[in-house]
């Protein structure tokens, strides 16, 4: 406890002494950055599964520094994750050092970057090097990037680098990524297109990975039903250069917009696809239409064998992904739906999402003085249809063969996720706002979490905001999740009092009252307070976290159960 107090004091002093002005000007030079500290004092709780940890006080900390002068900029990030929060330790995101640094120069014609960089081509089907700190993902590339704008509306990008793998050394790596992308915005090239209200955008990319094959692979085959045998994929049969190409287009006119991207991956036998040689492909379609008070958005995605990583033997969730197959389902912030967030399945998913928004007009009989917002949402995802090839049937495994054939638009037999949702939001008076929501979720526990069965559950949620007085507000969130499956039903309540812009206080509790095991009908309570001063935020919380998953944009990681006191400090300058 003494160590925790020391830690809290040190961080509070650092944050308080930090210069108040955001960004520092030295002539034409400018220095900016941000700092983050997220620490926790862990206490064991055998009931919720929070195991005792050796080092009870743990923290993640980082400091970003950015120097810029005209077109030149340089930056670095120091990360201290030597004794990280247990979530990150389980991801093996553990270590310390300057793992992100770069120098960059750009003018109207060219931009060059050396060092670490993030990049995305199109929707990310071929390349998405990004950081998502909460998930412990940092797929930055260490190498070089060139962007050229030879003509207004045309941007050509080339990248060449090695992907970051946690705190592992880059030295001795036998894999790297290279790619090019061309983006053509016809609205800028031919201004008349824009003047007439049209949007026309096309692009294409080609990304290739090199992964040295220096060993033969041994696989298990079943040439007869009760016979296992070994099979060898010799190293000369393992493709070392595997590309993905993608092409995309966007079209828009007034309130209508259509986006499409198709990608294809060439032979890439790897541990996540059971070493099949089938080409992968992905299709992403999105159409939106909006007018005053009404909006509709529909999207479709199909991904077949599109897990594309720097190393063929990497199967750990989220590590060394070169591309990203986005999850198109609606993302919710409802606490009780957190455990049933859909994780995008790059190797096998087909699904669609529809969302309709309608505002009942203001000052109408039904819409009330301020209008009423209605949102309807439906999404459904299946695995893809697969028929084993005769060769795969003959040896009793897809490994070492083309694997399967698949009818492109046929949904596979297994439902992965379905969400039917309805939300109504209304400002009742100047001081009161109300949001009511209902969701029916179907979640394939076996394919998405590795548990048994299908979870079907109903969520009812209410969110009430009361502006008590100028700068004072009280928010109440109440949720009930009813299910007979998995961990059973839960209720959740949150009360948050804000004195803007400085103070925030909240208490919350989740009660898993429907857990089939009577010893696990537990409460997960949390008390939190936060203070914000200019760009600095200091937050303290105490409570229990239920074991589950955390998903952001369809990428998920496991969250272990924990109990203790947390301190979070962020600031920018």
């Amino acid at each position: 406890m003494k160590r925790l107090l020391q830690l809290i004091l040190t961080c509070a002093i650092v944050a308080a002494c930090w210069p108040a002005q955001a960004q520092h000007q030295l002539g034409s030079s400018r220095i900016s950055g941000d700092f983050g500290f997220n620490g926790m004092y862990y206490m064991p709780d055998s009931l919720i599964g929070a195991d005792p940890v050796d080092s009870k006080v743990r923290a993640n900390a980082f400091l970003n520094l950015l120097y810029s002068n005209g077109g030149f900029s340089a930056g670095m990030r120091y990360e201290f994750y030597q004794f990280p929060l247990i979530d990150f330790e389980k991801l093996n995101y553990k270590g310390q050092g300057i793992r992100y640094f770069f120098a960059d120069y750009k003018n109207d014609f060219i931009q060059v970057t050396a060092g670490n960089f993030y990049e995305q081509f199109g929707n990310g089907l071929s390349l998405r090097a990004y950081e998502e700190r909460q998930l412990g993902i940092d797929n930055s590339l260490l190498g070089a990037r060139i962007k050229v704008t030879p003509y207004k509306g045309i941007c050509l990008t080339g990248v060449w680098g090695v992907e970051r793998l946690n705190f592992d050394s880059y030295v001795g790596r036998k894999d790297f990524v290279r790619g090019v992308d061309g983006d053509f915005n016809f609205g800028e090239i031919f201004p008349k297109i824009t003047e007439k209200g049209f949007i026309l955008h096309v692009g294409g990319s080609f990304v290739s990975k090199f992964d040295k094959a220096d060993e033969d692979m041994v696989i298990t085959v079943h040439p007869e039903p009760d016979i296992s045998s070994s099979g060898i994929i010799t190293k000369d049969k393992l493709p070392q250069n595997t590309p993905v190409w993608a092409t995309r287009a966007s079209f828009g006119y007034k309130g209508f917009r259509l986006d499409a991207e198709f990608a294809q991956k060439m032979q890439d036998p790897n541990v996540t696809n059971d070493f099949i040689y089938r080409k992968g492909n992905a299709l992403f379609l999105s159409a939106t239409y909006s007018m005053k008070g009404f909006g509709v958005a529909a999207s479709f995605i199909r991904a077949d064998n599109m897990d594309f990583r720097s190393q063929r033997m990497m199967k750990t969730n989220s590590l060394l992904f070169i591309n990203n197959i986005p999850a198109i389902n609606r993302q919710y912030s409802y606490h009780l739906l957190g455990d049933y967030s859909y994780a995008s399945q790059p190797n096998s998913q087909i699904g669609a999402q529809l969302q309709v928004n309608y505002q009942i007009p203001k000052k109408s009989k039904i819409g009330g003085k301020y209008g009423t917002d209605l949102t309807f949402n439906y999404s459904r995802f299946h695995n893809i249809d697969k028929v084993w090839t005769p060769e795969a049937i003959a040896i009793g495994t897809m490994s070492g063969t083309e694997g399967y054939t698949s009818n492109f638009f046929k949904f596979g037999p297994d439902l992965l996720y379905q969400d039917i949702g309805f939300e109504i939001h209304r400002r009742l008076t100047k001081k009161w706002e109300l949001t009511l929501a209902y969701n029916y979720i179907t979640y394939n526990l076996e394919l998405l979490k590795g548990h048994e069965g299908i979870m079907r559950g109903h969520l009812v949620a209410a969110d009430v905001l009361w502006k008590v007085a100028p700068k004072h507000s009280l928010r109440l969130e109440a949720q009930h999740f009813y299910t007979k499956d998995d961990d059973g039903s839960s209720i959740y309540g949150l009360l948050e009092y804000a004195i803007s812009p400085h103070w925030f206080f909240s208490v919350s509790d989740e009660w898993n009252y429907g857990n089939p095991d009577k010893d696990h009908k537990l409460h997960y309570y949390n008390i939190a307070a936060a203070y914000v001063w200019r760009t600095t935020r200091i937050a303290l919380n105490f409570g229990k976290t239920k074991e589950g998953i955390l998903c952001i944009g369809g990428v998920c990681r496991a969250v272990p159960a924990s109990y203790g006191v947390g301190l979070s400090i962020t600031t920018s300058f």
Partner: protein
Amino acid sequence: MKKIIFPIIILSVIILFTACDRVEGPYVVINDQDEVTVDFPDLDPTTVFRKVLIEEYTGHRCPNCPNGHEKLEELLTRFGDTLIPVCIHATSLAAPTVEFPDDLRAEAGLELATDWQIDGIPAGVINRADEPMGSIPARWLSKVNAVDRTDIPAAIQLINQYNENGLLKVNAKVTMLESHDSPLRLSLFIVEDGIVSPQINGTETIENYVHNHVLRGSINGTYGQLLNGTGELSAGESCLYAKSFSFVGTNWKPEHCSVVAILYDKNNYNVLQVERCPVTR
């Protein structure tokens, strides 16, 4: 500058488009049987023991199964390494659930349990000579004692080669010490000790229960393969046999695993000899 940028871009694209390997099939070479690459020491028939196989059918949600495990350990203390255990997690009580998330079942074990019609656990099968298969723990000692240890029909020698890439090669030499009329099959199982996973014991759940001798799978099929292709071996004749197996893609700990080689009669399944050898030794 702008004049040279396009040739550079075009050149880059050409280089990148060549960054694609196209591999022609067939991609995999199937090894029906591997080549034995070790030298076995000369066999002294007077040093060969008749070892006995005990297959214990069990499950992590079976309240009485810890009694079976206890009985098994008692027998192992009594008979030492001349009794070779394989714990087969099968029946609905071995299926994983939220509270018992680990799947300790093996395809081979489920097939055996179905074929032997094991429906109540714990159940023990000794040398596959029970009729019907499967007996309660209280009978295991008498059934082990019923095996004629003076009758030693065959010897099995095992040498495992394991490398850091997770590849195991099992080398076996079967020597017939007596003549045997029926064809012979050799099964190679992998068993793992020290798996920590929840287990029901009566009404209580033991979270950190240590499961030993757990059947993880078979290297050469549930019922193994016929020796010499025909299964026929005459007295004094030896047969060399080797199979490879990759641990890649499994969560098994090779240092806790052993290979159990079972030589049995193809027609009546009776076990003639059994041997066990750690994977990493």
